[in-house]
């Protein structure tokens, strides 16, 4: 008798020192369905999937694949059982071609040599069947993130996977790429593949999943068909309390102009012109959101503003004073706060403790430093205050930043930047990869800064975030601002059109 469940996990428990990551978890995934695994960061969904993929061994419990009880000792075993994982951070070798990445570890041979001909034929079949079109001869470096994800999917299919685990697959994609991914997932499911989607994004679940299992603190809260539920209900189950999607904020009270950017130009790392005469102003008491498809000069703009990149021409004025091409320290001292995009690489020194990270911007000034010596009593006292005020969950101020969760790491950064009382706060992707609770907190803080009369410049790839938080939206395309919109009078379609180089009121196709 054919079993209707592709995956059954029964009573799975997994404990790490000090944490119960999975506690008596039951999961049943039907063949051919898209099954979402919903939970906040740290809820245990990734641990569960790592158990399924053989990266961890469960302390208790049983796993059945297509009705057969199995022991998945390592990823190789999982692959043999037809389980494939599309990792959140792609597992691709950059200098290799698409083709080489797909076959790596499972190379077809002719004699002692790799037979690329056989590989190409097989990949061609798979691409056609599932609509996953890629150029096999391009290197990973040359293709977009969306394409790289297709390569990851093809890698699993090439190894004969019929159960595909997607770990937070949309985290790095643009809205258009997300649409394409959804279509691919639907197609895979229609062709009989079973899909497990790990995510904390409710919108995606509502759009694509057939069933959803919600995990909170290592336990299954519920498992139900998506058509029988709502996003609000799922959010409440995930977080354990009611969550509001609408960000409450007062009417903005814009005041004087804090930041003026005039005809700014700059080059990117490859020497191409990234900013092509960009002009913009941000006033006190408003949040200006920058929308745009990744790679249209946003990163370069932020880097020029914070002194990390040289402008080739143009002017940046803070309260009327020109500051372009000054050092990052000078710019910070001119009262600019900066929440960087990559909190682990640029926001924190991971091996420094929380207290030290909280004074990275002003450790050299009194009261933290006197006569060239650091005063740790002051530093830790300052830290203790901020830890309380920002509800940073850390054992103490001497814990290394590395040991904190993503949300708490971000709180450390926000606390540090806001504590410096900036006139202008630059927030880049401030909630990327954070869970609902932490996102709410960061959003509240940004609005609080606005209400205190600070100028906030927000750059995010999440269009929802831009629409919800901003008082004005500047759309960036090819190194220029191509439109300033009022979030109350616009919608995703209009912004999307501007983002892709179209003009207001026009319906032209752009590449």
């Amino acid at each position: 008798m054919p079993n209707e469940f592709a995956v059954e996990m029964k009573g799975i428990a997994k404990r790490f020192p000090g944490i119960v990551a999975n506690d008596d978890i039951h999961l049943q995934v039907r063949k051919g369905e898209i099954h979402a695994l919903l939970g906040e960061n740290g809820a245990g969904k990734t641990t569960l999937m790592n158990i399924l993929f053989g990266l961890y061994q469960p302390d208790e419990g049983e796993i059945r694949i297509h009705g057969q009880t199995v022991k998945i000792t390592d990823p190789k075993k999982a692959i043999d059982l037809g389980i494939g994982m599309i990792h959140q951070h792609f597992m691709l070798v950059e200098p290799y071609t698409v083709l080489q990445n797909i076959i790596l570890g499972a190379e077809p041979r002719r004699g002692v040599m790799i037979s690329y001909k056989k590989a190409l034929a097989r990949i061609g079949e798979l691409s056609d069947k599932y609509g996953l079109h890629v150029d096999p001869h391009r290197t990973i470096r040359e293709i977009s993130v969306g394409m790289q994800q297709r390569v990851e999917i093809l890698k699993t299919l090439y190894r004969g996977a019929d159960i595909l685990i997607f770990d937070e697959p949309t985290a790095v994609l643009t809205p258009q790429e997300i649409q394409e991914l959804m279509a691919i997932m639907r197609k895979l499911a229609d062709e009989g593949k079973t899909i497990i989607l790990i995510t904390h994004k409710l919108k995606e679940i509502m759009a694509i999943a057939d069933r959803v299992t919600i995990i909170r603190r290592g336990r299954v809260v519920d498992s139900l068909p998506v058509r029988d539920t709502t996003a609000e209900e799922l959010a409440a189950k995930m977080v354990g309390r009611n969550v509001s999607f609408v960000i409450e904020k007062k009417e903005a009270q814009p005041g004087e102009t804090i930041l003026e950017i005039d005809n700014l130009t700059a080059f990117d790392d490859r020497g191409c012109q990234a900013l092509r005469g960009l002009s913009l102003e941000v006033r006190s008491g408003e949040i200006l959101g920058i929308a745009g498809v990744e790679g249209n000069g946003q990163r370069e703009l932020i880097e020029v503003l914070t002194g990390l990149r040289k402008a080739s021409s143009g002017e940046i004025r803070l309260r009327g004073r020109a500051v372009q091409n000054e050092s990052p320290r000078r710019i910070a001292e001119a009262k600019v706060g900066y929440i960087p995009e990559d909190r682990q690489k640029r926001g924190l020194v991971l091996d420094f403790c929380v207290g030290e990270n909280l004074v990275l911007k002003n450790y050299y000034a009194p009261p933290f430093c006197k006569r060239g010596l650091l005063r740790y009593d002051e530093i830790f006292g300052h830290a203790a205050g901020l830890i309380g005020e920002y509800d940073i969950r850390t054992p103490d101020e001497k814990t290394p930043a590395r040991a904190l969760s993503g949300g708490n790491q971000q709180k450390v950064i926000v606390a540090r930047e806001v504590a410096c009382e900036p006139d202008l706060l630059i927030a880049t992707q401030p909630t990327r990869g954070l869970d609902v609770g932490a996102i709410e907190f960061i959003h509240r803080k940004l609005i609080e800064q606005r209400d205190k009369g600070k100028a906030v410049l927000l750059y995010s790839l999440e269009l929802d975030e831009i629409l919800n938080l901003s008082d004005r939206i500047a759309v960036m395309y090819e190194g220029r601002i191509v439109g300033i919109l009022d979030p109350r009078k616009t919608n995703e379609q209009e912004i999307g059109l501007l983002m892709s180089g179209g003009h207001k009121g026009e319906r032209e196709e752009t590449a």
Partner: protein
Amino acid sequence: MAVLQVASDLIQTTIVFATALVFAMLGGLISERSGVVNIALEGMMMVGAFTAAIVTYFLETNAGLGGSAPWIGFVCAIAAGAVFALPHAAASVTFRADQVVSGVALNLLAAGATIYLCKMLLNGAAQTPTLKHVFSKWAVPALSDIPYLGPALFVAYPTSYIAFLLVAVMAFVLYKTPAGLRLRAVGEHPKAADSVAINVYRVRYAAVMISGALAAMGGATIALTTTSNFSHNTISGQGFIALAALIFGKWRPVAGMFAALFFGIASALKSVFQVYGITNYIPVDFIYMFPYILTVLVLAGFVGRAVAPGAVGKPYRKGER
């Protein structure tokens, strides 16, 4: 015709000197392509030279072997090199130590241990006596009769033929076989390799041990062709020159081979200059310095931007995020 004669001599000598560099360069290449920095090439060459010389010496004096003695010495050197590389693999792969520090330690160990063992085995002599049986040059039939070009390219030590053959083998393995694809993947992005069930640790151990074997072949070549003995200055920095050749050749076998030949010319020039009396005009010390200065320049990065394997020098920890 004198010019042609000089050129012919120069090429022949270049190949003699470059042979050891080619071996060691290939050793460095396989290790670094797998992601393990190998600054210990020098020490591995010393171990190779010492093993080859001492084994050959005892075989010819005590066992009465003749022409086969250096061959057995050569094979023993290969084995000794692989074994000697093991601690570097253990330190770099299993214990995730700093690979440069581990390499330096191995170099110091080799310098001390070879002399110590030499004194122990040879009643206090710090170097082996001159070997009676070493490799002699082979002439390729017919091809070696071509005027000038023949003696330049087709009269060489057997080790030279082996070295240049290995370049081709290395290029083939690296770019045409599954093993090569996996090795390079491990050196570029070990986590990606791990995710497709390639055993990163095993690949790196194997690469480092083969590296030791290859470097030792280079050392053995010097002891069994140019110096005919082993002493403390048999290798004298050639492991580092090989490392420079590796970088100069951008971690690619054929380009690395040409880089090794280039450094070989530098060494050959000093011999040829002496033979032709040019040292009367340029102080010999300058000519001796030449290969080393070239090495410093290359290692300091004056020659183009080198693209090292993505994960070289970074220990791999399974399961780290």
